[in-house]
């Protein structure tokens, strides 16, 4: 299982790559593997305000429907529209294909997220 060091994670299997007040958000390798073939992505809307831990989108595989939870509160700056046409990119490269960019309004919320090592240990408890 691939868990890049430089990212922060949630126990709901999202990752965020923080760059100042901007965060790229996606789903983890563990998430894509367990969902199986991803066939549909419902992206958040541009400029939408999202709250930490609340739904910001939906990922559907052949068998399952999964909610994408926002790792932080903020405003949606960009969405990866390519995923609407090619949702399988999330299976092929879950860290290379971000889903949305969030303007991080509460930097302190980043403390609620877990490190790569913590996330990896957490996933092992799920197996």
């Amino acid at each position, binding site marked *: 299982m691939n868990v890049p060091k430089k990212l922060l994670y949630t126990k709901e299997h999202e990752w965020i790559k923080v760059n100042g007040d901007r965060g790229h958000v996606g789903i983890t390798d563990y998430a894509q593997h367990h969902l199986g*073939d991803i066939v549909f992505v*419902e992206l958040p809307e541009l400029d939408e305000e999202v709250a930490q831990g609340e739904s910001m989108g939906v990922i559907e595989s052949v068998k399952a429907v999964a909610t994408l939870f926002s790792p932080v509160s903020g405003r949606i700056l960009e969405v990866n529209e390519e995923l609407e046409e090619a949702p399988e990119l999330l299976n092929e490269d879950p860290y290379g294909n971000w889903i949305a960019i969030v303007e991080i309004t509460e930097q302190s919320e980043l403390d609620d997220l877990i490190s790569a090592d913590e996330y990896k240990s957490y996933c092992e408890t799920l197996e």
Partner: protein
Amino acid sequence: MSLKRTPLYPMHLKHNGKIIDFGGWELPVQYEGMGIIKEHNMVREKAGLFDVSHMGEITIIGEQAEQMVQKLVTNDVKSMQDFQVMYSPMCYPSGGVVDDLLVYRYDSKNYLLVVNAANTDKDYEWIQQNLIPGVEASNRSSEYAQLALQGPAAQDILQKLTTLDLNTIRFFWFNPQVNISGVDCLVSRTGYTGEDGFEIYVEPQQAEFIWEEIIRAGQELVSPIGLGARDSLRFEAKLPLYGQEIDQDITPLEAGLGFFVKLEAGDFIGRTALIQQKQEGLKRKLVEFSMLGKGIPRSHYEVEVDGMPVGHVSSGMYSPTFKKPIGLALLNIEHCEPGSEIDIIIRNQPVKARVEKGIFYRKKTKSK
């Protein structure tokens, strides 16, 4: 209650199957390195091997066996010949469905019913309650393992393992004694995928051996296939799934299975209700639909027109063959005309869809 394992469980571990609890059975939903879409396409293009040992087998034996089976099922049992297989719903007096099953006729005094795994105990009780004199029913499920080999390459693969010319087993017929790699098996040309193929019944002790023989003979033309692709394959071929297209509250006529209801065949259970339903006209029925808006329809999603409920999705998913979402819905009759626009309620939002006809999968049949 502990989970049950089929005799092929070691094979699922060997092929790195992702094991799930399927109605009390530990079975693979998909295999590592494959996944539902790859497995699905494998069956459409080459061949796939399924463990369906969880299916139930009930024998009906005795002088009055033919009458007994006819009492149970809606299709015409008397029209069957020895070694023929017939698909049929089995109904309650209300016309709702107890189960759908395959009837194997050895002769008029000896039948084998193959029923859905999750319904086996319920079906067996139902049969016992309705038993007529001169017949014995027994639940033989633990005495059979069952493998399904499905896909355009299925016959070529199985032919490598037997001297019997498989062309002698026609669609929906069986041979009770086919020697496969030295093991006696019951083989029928039946399946649940919309492809040509076989279902192979063998004693549990020999199941692993037969599995490995088929994998060996098929080489790159065959893969193990999990329950995920079994569902997507049957769905694309519009084959009903108990609990979705049919259940105790849905009649075979509503589910579009009227072809398997022979009202003149005999006085089967549910006949009166089905005759009445036919005379009065259906109030709802199963239709195909395609999505106009974005989203994937799923089983049990509500369907609305102008904000009013008109039915529900029985099955829906992303179709790997057509590469888009399609669905089946049970709708009030006034919305069933092809071309009618409906709203599928996905996460509380209406998403536009259209009633269709003939958009599901039909294999390119080679006549047998």
